[in-house]
């Protein structure tokens, strides 16, 4: 990992250069319907972007796993059916990630998308994208990235991490893609004291988040698996609507549905759409049987998949602690509080429930 110094002007010039080269540049932009909120949107100039105030409403995953995406188009002809699959090459794109927790979501989901079968639609876009993250200064009481082993300065999933210092940014260049992006930009030697002030800013940001939730112990995953039938699951999600809004704003929720639709009587498309295990139809069998018939089982699946199944299978917690699910939940389900309660319960009942 090498370091460079980028002044604000260097960054503005970089964006201008990228836009001139027809590379799409995405950054957090104030939303038209509510200027308080931010959305990841294309920008032409750096000034249109806003950094460091808060997290955008939706995570960056939609640039890699779109809300809806055509997998193939079909056309019925006299001889039979012709299909055209969606190409997996993607145009180059540079994404300014508001915080490391968004960028690290990509790296977490990479694990399942490369499990034996390479999801080339996902990886086509990942290869074409360069992710530039900023040190997070927008944490609030709901953030818990340090609890899942990340942090306001974590580099997972980012190609460059910019830490604000006096007069500009200390750019930590992490991957070859980051190097290619910043080649010849700003200055290679870092001004005196910049590193120290960066480290101080990182430490201070980390301390603020650590207060929200202690680090999740490694054995939490196996405790959850052992307590699959614990009575707590019957009462933990009574106020949950089962609406799935949490899964839609989550940087690591990657479940999808594959559905065909018609554009005319002979033509149509097979689409991949966002889906969520919180919806009642997610596991409904054609026979009418539903292994997860009520919201208790569905919310248990959300916790088990994120904090037990995914860590067991892929070695990563399927959560970056960004807190969006808690902020957006209309029913007041607060994931950090719930995980906190479960962790204390795990301490008091290490052996799990005697049902």
């Amino acid at each position, binding site marked *: 990992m090498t370091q460079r110094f980028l002044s604000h002007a260097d960054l503005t010039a970089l964006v201008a250069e990228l836009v001139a080269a027809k590379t799409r540049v995405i950054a957090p932009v104030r939303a038209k319907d509510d200027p308080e909120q931010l959305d990841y949107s294309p920008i032409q100039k750096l000034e249109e972007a806003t950094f460091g105030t808060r997290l955008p409403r939706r995570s960056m995953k939609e640039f890699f796993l779109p809300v809806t995406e055509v997998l193939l188009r079909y056309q019925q002809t006299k001889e039979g059916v012709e299909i055209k699959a969606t190409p997996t090459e993607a145009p180059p794109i540079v994404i300014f990630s508001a915080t490391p927790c968004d960028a690290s979501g990509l790296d977490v989901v990479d694990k399942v998308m490369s499990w034996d079968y390479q999801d080339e639609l996902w990886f086509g876009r990942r290869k074409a994208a360069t992710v530039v993250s900023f040190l997070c200064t927008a944490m609030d009481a709901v953030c818990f990235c340090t609890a899942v082993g990340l942090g306001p300065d974590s580099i997972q999933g980012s190609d460059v991490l910019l830490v604000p210092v006096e007069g500009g940014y200390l750019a930590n260049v992490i991957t070859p893609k980051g190097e290619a992006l910043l080649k010849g930009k700003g200055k290679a030697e870092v001004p005196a004291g910049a590193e120290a002030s960066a480290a101080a800013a990182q430490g201070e940001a980390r301390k603020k988040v650590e207060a929200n939730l202690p680090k999740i112990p490694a054995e939490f995953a196996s405790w959850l698996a052992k307590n699959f039938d614990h009575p707590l699951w019957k009462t933990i999600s009574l106020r949950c609507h089962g609406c799935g809004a949490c899964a839609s704003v989550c940087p690591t929720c990657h479940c999808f549905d594959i559905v065909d639709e018609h554009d005319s009587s002979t033509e149509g498309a097979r689409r991949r759409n966002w889906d969520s295990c919180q919806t009642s139809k997610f596991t409904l069998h054609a026979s009418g049987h539903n292994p997860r018939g009520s919201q208790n089982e569905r919310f248990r699946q959300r916790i088990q998949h994120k904090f037990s199944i995914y860590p067991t299978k892929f070695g990563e917690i399927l959560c970056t602690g960004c807190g969006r699910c808690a902020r957006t939940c209309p*029913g007041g389900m607060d994931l950090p509080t719930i995980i906190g309660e479960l962790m204390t319960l795990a301490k008091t009942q290490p052996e799990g429930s005697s049902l």
Partner: protein
Amino acid sequence: MKELQDLARKLLSEGTVKVVIGYEEGPRGARAAFITDPEQADPLIFDTRCVQNLAAYLNPRRKQIATLGKPAVVVKGCDARSVAGLIRENQIARDSVVIIAMQCGGVLENPDVAGELTSEAVSTRCGGCDVCEPKLFDHYIKSATAKTPPVNPKRTEQLAALAKMTPTERWNFWSEEFSRCIRCHACREACPMCFCVQCTAEKGTPLWIDAAATPRANRAWQTMRVLHQAGRCVDCLECERACPEHIPLGLLARYVADSVERRFEYKAGDDPSVPAPMGIYRTDDDEELIR
């Protein structure tokens, strides 16, 4: 809120109800509470942050709550109308729920930010409220401080602005709003009156509304959802509050409710015995539209 807590303790210890669905202090503002043990009735609160329409938990699709047994539900006057709606459409029996209605002086638009009920902070649904003193209840808890809530003009202004637009401008306004819709159906899941077991939007044969979040499907979805709320929506704005994309669904709901009130002199009210307007007719309904 001592009176509410005492009532909850009494109802639970007598065994009249098995669970009291009320509000409690959550990590961020008020949230729903499910009290089953008389000793734990203390967390029950009621203040201007108690925005959520708890009647949504009486929706028969919520199996995990139905298993708890007979509920008592804490409602404001407007929420009580959702309970009346569920009773009116035979989803719950009147005697299967104990209604604890609170006198209400208006609630906040954004419950996460506690504060004084100014005309900017008050919820748009409280303007012109006629049920500060609820009409449908088994127990009524007065409040010394409740007075008629100020009017938040935001929605009336938006409706007026839309009325002045040409059809194409309105089309573009809604296309822009629906472009953010991701079809998570949170608006449906949060609504007390959306109790269909198999929603048309999830029917595959025939595929009326595509499952994808395309402009065509989003528009068909919202059109159908709002039409199905004609004469049933009590304007509690849970759909707008649940939407992770902050789409102003309340405008659609309010416009249709006004249209139903104007054409059929009906407002989704507190009396479950008054039938819903779209399920009845009058031979002298106006025929202004019919050529």
